């Protein structure tokens, strides 16, 4: 955003002020503006955000836990390219424990975790990625939660221990928030979200993966105001999850006009028509993808011509299926059909019943007269 407008700021390239390691002032302000926009704050807040981020007296300590996940959220968080979010993040936060990127391993890593917890008791942020399995593996010696064990501790024990002294718990990704793909029926490991597993309030930033701008904005919100953002009933920050994809979708005009893609690759698809009939779950999915897009504003599913699958909604693997159909099938034992088929059958049965009775009445019409006559006597 800022690069293209650099002429407006009146700074010559050699006037770049290095504020944070490797990030020039212009990029930094661009970052702050993006965060302000994501949080729904006016541009007047940009300098205050810059102040809060730069001036954080002591970088908040962050402990990043990995449980049942694919590390996609770490990727989303750390591999963003512009405006160097990962540089900023690693500069404003003291990430003391992150299994994927930390140099230490084994005992050293565990010591780092213990030290971070002891030094910043009650002040550190815990970011959790991945679901916690609550089930018991079959076979001898299986103990509850042993499906995911790190350093000899189950995910549950580890999460309980680390979150006990945390200032806040931020769940990134749908797995940590609501269980994710491994919680799909029949959920063999008994995976649940962190909040559900521990019974504690968490900030949930779902998405598969979550959008790094939302987690960064949550942290900036914390630095700026000393508090966590307001959330909806699923613990999702309202600044990112108050509106549906559908409400800001660039294809919405085609939805309202009744112009739909009927098959992938058809004429409508070429014209970027609405993906409603291709099973788009935008109308029931709360997320800000359509505003901030993914990978630093490069693209997102609907821009790429694929319907939304609702990845930021609880249990989306179960509840949003089928991904390419508008309505799910009806699952009643012995019945596996669409609502339309069941409905046609019902209407057909009602019409057939009426027709049969009409024919019966017609065949017995003389009886009707008799009844009438008898009554008249």
């Amino acid at each position: 955003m800022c690069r293209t407008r650099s002429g407006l700021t009146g700074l010559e390239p050699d006037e770049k002020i290095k504020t944070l390691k490797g990030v020039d002032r212009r990029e930094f302000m661009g970052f702050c503006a993006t965060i302000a926009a994501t949080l729904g704050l006016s541009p007047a807040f940009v300098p205050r955000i810059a102040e809060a981020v730069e001036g954080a007296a002591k970088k908040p300590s962050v402990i990043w836990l990995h449980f049942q996940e694919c590390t996609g959220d770490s990727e989303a968080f750390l591999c963003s390219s512009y405006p160097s979010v990962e540089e900023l993040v690693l500069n404003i936060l003291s990430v003391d424990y992150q299994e994927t990127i930390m140099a230490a391993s084994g005992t050293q890593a565990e010591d780092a975790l213990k030290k971070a917890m002891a030094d910043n008791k009650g002040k550190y942020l815990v970011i959790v990625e991945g679901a916690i399995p609550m089930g018991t593996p079959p076979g001898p010696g299986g103990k509850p939660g042993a499906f995911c064990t790190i350093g000899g501790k189950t995910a549950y024990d580890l999460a309980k221990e680390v979150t006990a002294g945390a200032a806040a718990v931020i769940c990134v990704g749908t797995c940590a928030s609501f269980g994710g793909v491994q919680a799909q029926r029949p959920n063999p490991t008994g995976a649940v979200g962190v909040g559900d597993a521990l019974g504690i309030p968490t900030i949930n930033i779902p998405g598969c993966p979550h959008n790094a701008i939302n987690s960064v904005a949550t942290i900036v919100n914390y630095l700026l105001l000393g508090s966590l953002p307001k959330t909806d009933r699923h613990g999702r920050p309202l600044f990112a999850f108050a509106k549906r994809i559908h409400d800001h979708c660039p294809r919405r005009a085609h939805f309202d006009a009744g112009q739909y893609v009927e098959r992938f690759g058809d004429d409508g698809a070429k014209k970027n028509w609405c993906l409603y009939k291709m099973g788009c779950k935008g109308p029931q999915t709360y997320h800000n993808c359509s505003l901030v897009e993914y990978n630093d504003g490069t693209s997102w599913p609907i821009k790429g011509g694929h319907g939304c699958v609702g990845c930021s909604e609880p249990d989306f693997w179960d509840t949003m299926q089928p991904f390419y159909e508008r309505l799910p099938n009806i699952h009643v034992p012995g019945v596996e059909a669409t609502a339309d088929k069941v409905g046609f059958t019902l209407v057909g049965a009602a019409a057939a019943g009426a027709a049969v009775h009409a024919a019966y009445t017609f065949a017995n019409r003389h009886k009707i007269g008799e009844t009438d006559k008898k009554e008249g006597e």
Partner: protein
Amino acid sequence: MARAGIYPQKKNLVYVRNFTNRLLHWTMFFSVMVLLPTGYYIGNPTALFGHGEAYNQFIMADIRVYHFFAAMALDISIMLRFYLAFFSMYHRDWFEVLPIPSRIIGAIQIARSYLTFKKPPFYRHVDPLDGLTFLCLHLFMVLQLVTGFHLYAHALPGNYWWSRLIHLGTDWVVPVFGSDQAVRNVHHLMLWITIAGIIMHVYIQVIKTIIWRDGHISAIVGGYKYRDVK
């Protein structure tokens, strides 16, 4: 009765439905007639419409608005009907649709009469079989109201009192049916159940009018039906 007709002398005219009752019935009828096709289009928009440029047309948006207006009309009539069933000055009929044993026996008797053409006793307002059918249909309509409002509330901003109110009143359908997607499916299935219900309801009224010559259809238009003179 002075009125001559196809049933001279043998029948009396009985006033059974007052104006409010008939008005509500026909409001429901017309709103349902709007709701069924618009609802079907919303669930499965056909490719018949919607070519040309998007700025020229507003088909889905318009159809949704008609659906919402008709739904409001239906919801208000249903609520009024429920209110009047308990507090009407003219005729409080909530008791007549309760599935108590004697009514179930009565309903079976009437169902039998459709096959044997033996006339059941005269019921001034609603007969037991109709009563039970109406109970089911109205409960279905309430389900449709609740699921419909829940889907509608998706589009409302969360921080106004009316959307909070709608969420408060309808959020329970999600755990009951499993998910938003299932709620939508139930709402869609109800479209077909309503059509099947309408076919049965209309057929039964027509057949009653023909077999028993009680003027059941006249009653919902003019308010009077016929009673045999003993």
